């Protein structure tokens, strides 16, 4: 088993496993966020649960952080190995003749997503950690006694620059997923029988989820 992850294919599989985990997380994140469009209360309830549940906070959250870091570190390692595999590059290379832009530029879409995650952490995660674990306020309440989550969300999306950054980031996420989803299953050895359907599903996922996130950001921008 340890031998597997030393090999190139093992690393691909590891990359794919972390990707599957992140895609499931993304779906869950989206499911909660979309609640904010329909009902502030439901959104607050679920957010409070997620923010204060021991299992989520102290088991899932570290795993998630590990998953994100792992996916990025592995991605960089792969990229370095792959760049080293061709020391002299072609004078003329017609990549678009045989590959998609998305598949060739996973590292760039990935970096864009990384930049977004940094922004996202600054926006939400760091204030959360600060409020809960440094200031010790785990009530989740505003001074007026209402839950703070929805308010904070709306507040963040007042700034058009931030909204614009979110939109751009999610476009990159879509590009990343457009190759990444099918690629994940190919790496896991999914057979061609399932691939046509998987590809279609992957395309749908890669477009609908980021579009949904963009919709949420714009919704709050226009409705605050």
């Amino acid at each position, binding site marked *: 088993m340890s031998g597997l992850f030393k*090999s190139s294919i093992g690393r691909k599989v590891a990359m794919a496993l972390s990707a599957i985990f992140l895609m499931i997380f993304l779906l869950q994140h989206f499911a909660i966020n979309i609640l904010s469009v329909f009902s502030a209360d439901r959104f607050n309830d679920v957010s409070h649960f997620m923010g204060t549940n021991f299992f989520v906070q102290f088991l899932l959250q570290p795993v998630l952080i590990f998953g994100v870091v792992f996916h990025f570190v592995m991605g960089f390692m792969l990229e370095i190995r792959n*760049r080293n595999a061709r020391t002299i590059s072609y004078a*003329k290379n017609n990549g678009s*003749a*045989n590959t998609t832009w998305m598949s060739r530029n996973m590292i760039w879409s990935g970096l864009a997503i990384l930049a977004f995650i940094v922004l996202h952490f600054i926006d939400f995660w760091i204030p959360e950690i600060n409020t809960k674990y440094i200031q010790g306020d785990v009530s989740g309440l505003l001074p007026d006694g209402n839950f703070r989550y929805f308010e904070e969300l709306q507040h963040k999306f007042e700034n058009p620059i931030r909204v614009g950054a979110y939109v751009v980031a999610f476009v990159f996420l879509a590009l990343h997923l457009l190759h990444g989803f099918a690629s994940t299953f190919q790496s896991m050895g999914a057979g061609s029988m399932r691939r046509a359907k998987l590809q279609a599903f992957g395309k749908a996922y890669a477009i609908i989820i980021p579009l949904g996130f963009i919709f949420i950001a714009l919704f709050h921008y226009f409705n605050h």
Partner: protein
Amino acid sequence: MNLTLKIWRQKDAKSKGKMVSYQVNDISEHMSFLEMMDVLNEQLINEGQEPIAFDHDCREGICGMCSMYINGEAHGPDRGVTTCQLHMRSFKDGDTITIEPFRAKAFPVIKDLVVDRSAFERIQQAGGFISVNTSGNTQDANAIPISKHAADEAMDSATCIGCGACVASCKNASAMLFVGAKVSQYALLPQGQIEATDRVKNMVAQMDLEGFGNCTNTGACEVECPKGISLENIARMNRELMKANL
């Protein structure tokens, strides 16, 4: 037609190389690409220059020897063909054609457009065989029936000509299509099952040792493969390796 050729010239493995421009005139559209190169070489010899070294042998697309990167694609712009099967009718009068060797750290240039593909040999030696004695004293050929479907699929994998276009086209210079095809051929046949575990482990380990890049599933290899070897072979190799390790 008249053409400008920009060709990689490199004296030997140690020397630095560079792109050099040449002019060829009166090229017939019925010529094969390599016949056009013959014309250029004849011209260079007559001018007292050194002709361009390039690998070629059967000139009918099966030996896998020819290996040029033409206008940014392995074996040029046509699909399902090797360089020797590419014809000049794929180009227009006045075109500039860029011709480079297959590039990968694991395929060092020997001279001009000739590269060293012995990394492929070592991968095959690591496990690309079935350990059966060649005495002929084996069981009758029909003793183990093999479904037509499996035999045909194994044949599709086995049509790989080992040219290295997959490596050359891959942005990561990955050899997974080549290795996957060989692993698949044996994985699909009952005769290959006995050593399947060691085979895939050893071949992948050797592939990694040779310095090929990792697969990121861009699919360039499948598109540029002159024999149409499918990505499914890589997926199957991945499955085989996971199976072998679990």
